């Protein structure tokens, strides 16, 4: 199965139009649709948001072609809107967070598993185990605050168990920077993986920041602040992987290629016919964006675009459960941390990180509080009679007065 990027025709930019009704379609069903339908929507939205951010930044740094950037960016914005609006309103903010974390874990695991550069793969696995732990903490919060089961969202694709403890994920900024890949020597897949991982991390960061203050419960508010901070670290890590010598047009080309690659994977695996039609339409939009930017790149930089992006994609993203790979990584790398640009055992982390972490956790650790003694059971921890029937009265205060 291949996608020929030169032969496939996209939709002309002038025909990439929307109406408000078109943007606000019937959402997916939280109960009936497949978990990966929700995951695809989250990742698609994340990559569109990344495109919009990049194109705004390009203008701010004095890029030429601001009219073309504005034209394409408007379409990307509406694509992001349509995808986000396909999420249903009966999906609570916490359920959305569970879904965002699942998207980060499952798509993160797949690109980490397929990543050809060992160093970049290691960086992606570092983020994977941290997202995996976020899912566990969020599931504990959902269980203990709302009495609801995260597995109804996860649909048994993703384990609910500790990863690298969130409390151990806080690192000094200098320890979140990685070595960048070499723009000439690195496989295109690596460049796309770093961008997709960065887009998902940015999306989760923004999501936690938006949703956190909507909770009344102080533990929830603290947990979201903590998770948002880690996602900021992940964005820092992903951005640092990109070769800073890439020109802005090269980066635009890669951004559009990442969108094509993602939508092709979405289209190849989607089970909901209504959503599949959206992927089909948006893949055609992105093929045209890529064609336009390729022509611009070749004309401006006098280089063959195939030096930067491949002529075809050979294998789409799968969007399938990655349980075996995640468990393997968990068993081997849960105790890893980072010092400078290197991955090290946690006991070799830098003093800067140790001091940063100690400062943040001086008044307690939200992620430890929310999941204290938490073990997921089908139907929530209350389905376990030992938990359900345990005394909830405070110590030394057997009765109230």
């Amino acid at each position, binding site marked *: 199965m291949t996608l020929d990027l030169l032969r496939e025709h996209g939709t002309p930019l002038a025909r990439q139009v929307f109406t408000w009704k078109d943007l606000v379609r*019937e959402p997916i*069903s*939280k*109960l*009936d649709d497949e978990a990966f339908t929700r995951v695809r929507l989250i990742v698609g939205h994340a990559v569109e948001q990344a495109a919009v951010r990049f194109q705004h930044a390009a203008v701010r740094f004095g890029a030429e072609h601001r009219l073309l950037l504005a034209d394409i960016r408007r379409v990307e914005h509406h694509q992001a809107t349509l995808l986000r609006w396909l999420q*249903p*309103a*009966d999906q*609570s903010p916490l359920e959305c967070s569970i879904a965002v974390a699942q998207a980060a874990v499952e798509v993160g695991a797949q690109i980490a598993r397929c990543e050809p550069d060992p160093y970049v793969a290691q960086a992606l696995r570092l983020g994977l185990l941290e997202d995996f732990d976020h899912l566990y903490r969020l599931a504990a919060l959902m269980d*203990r*605050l*709302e*009495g*609801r*089961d995260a*597995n*109804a969202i996860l649909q048994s694709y993703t384990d609910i168990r500790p990863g690298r403890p969130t409390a151990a994920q806080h690192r000094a900024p200098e320890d979140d920077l990685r070595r960048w890949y070499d723009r000439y020597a690195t496989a295109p897949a690596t460049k796309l993986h770093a961008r997709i991982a960065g887009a998902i991390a940015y999306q989760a960061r923004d999501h936690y920041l938006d949703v956190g203050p909507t*909770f*009344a*419960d*102080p533990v*929830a508010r603290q947990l979201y602040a903590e998770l948002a901070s880690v996602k900021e670290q992940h964005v820092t890590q992903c951005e640092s992987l990109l070769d800073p010598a890439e020109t802005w047009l090269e980066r635009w080309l890669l951004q559009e290629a990442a969108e094509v690659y993602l939508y092709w994977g979405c289209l190849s695996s989607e089970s909901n016919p209504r959503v599949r039609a959206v992927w089909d339409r948006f893949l055609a939009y992105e093929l045209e964006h890529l064609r336009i930017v390729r022509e611009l790149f070749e004309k401006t930089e006098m280089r063959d675009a195939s030096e930067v992006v491949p002529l075809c994609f050979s294998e789409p993203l799968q969007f399938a459960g990655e349980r075996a790979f995640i468990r393997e990584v968990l068993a081997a790398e849960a105790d890893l941390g980072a010092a400078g640009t290197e991955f090290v055992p946690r006991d070799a982390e830098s003093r800067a990180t140790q001091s940063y972490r100690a400062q943040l956790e001086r008044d307690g650790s939200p992620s430890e509080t929310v999941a204290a003694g938490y073990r997921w059971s*089908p*139907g*929530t921890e*209350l*389905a376990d*009679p030992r938990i*359900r*029937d345990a*005394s*909830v*009265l*405070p110590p030394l*205060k*057997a*009765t*109230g*007065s």
Partner: protein
Amino acid sequence: MNRARRPTDLALNRTGIYLSPTDGPAVVEGARDAPSSPGCARALAEVRRQYAGEVGLIGHMPAPASLRVVENVGGAVLRRHKVHLLLDKLGERLAFERTGVRLFDALMAKLEAQGSWDRGPTLAELAQFRADEAHHFALLQDVLINLGADPTAITPSADLAGVELAGIVQVVSDPRTTLPQALHAHLVAELVDSTSWEQLVDLADDFGEAALAHKLREPLAQELRHRDTVTTWLKRHAALVVGGTLKYSA
């Protein structure tokens, strides 16, 4: 929270227009003198009607964990959609009771922090009510399993119960709310819960499921007691406030 401070104390609440003697009339004048957007509020109804005619449902019942539920409920062969109605409502109660446990967890934390009043709730009473909710949850799990259904599935009514309860969870879990404010929110849950248990018992009776209806009557009695007790606590609190004799004790 400082127990001496009450939400009914006067402070600078800025939300009312009469607090702004100059800007208030100006904003009224500005709105009055400007033309409105064309049309009337009926326009919203038109769009809602259009969507209602086009979209599907929030979701459906899951496939049964075993075929027992489709074929037979306690010996009475039922038409499939009727069985699903019963399972949907059992799933709704299960979700509600499970969240109910967590509502009592939050109420207990609030009582620990703020104390209670004379003949107000005690920790032991809240703990007992929490245990009742947990027991009801376990009972419904068993009932669903015995009917061949999957008690971990979210039925459509269970899903909507989650949406309905969201505001109550927010009020009860907010550290800024007082115990009476949280109990008022919780009363909404108890009112719905007690009525819903009554409907569930009636439904089981209508299906000729005497044994099931009998099993559901004990939770119903307990939920009616919860509702009445929470109401009594709130009435007592109001009486103490009016009488000027309200005192909180740990």
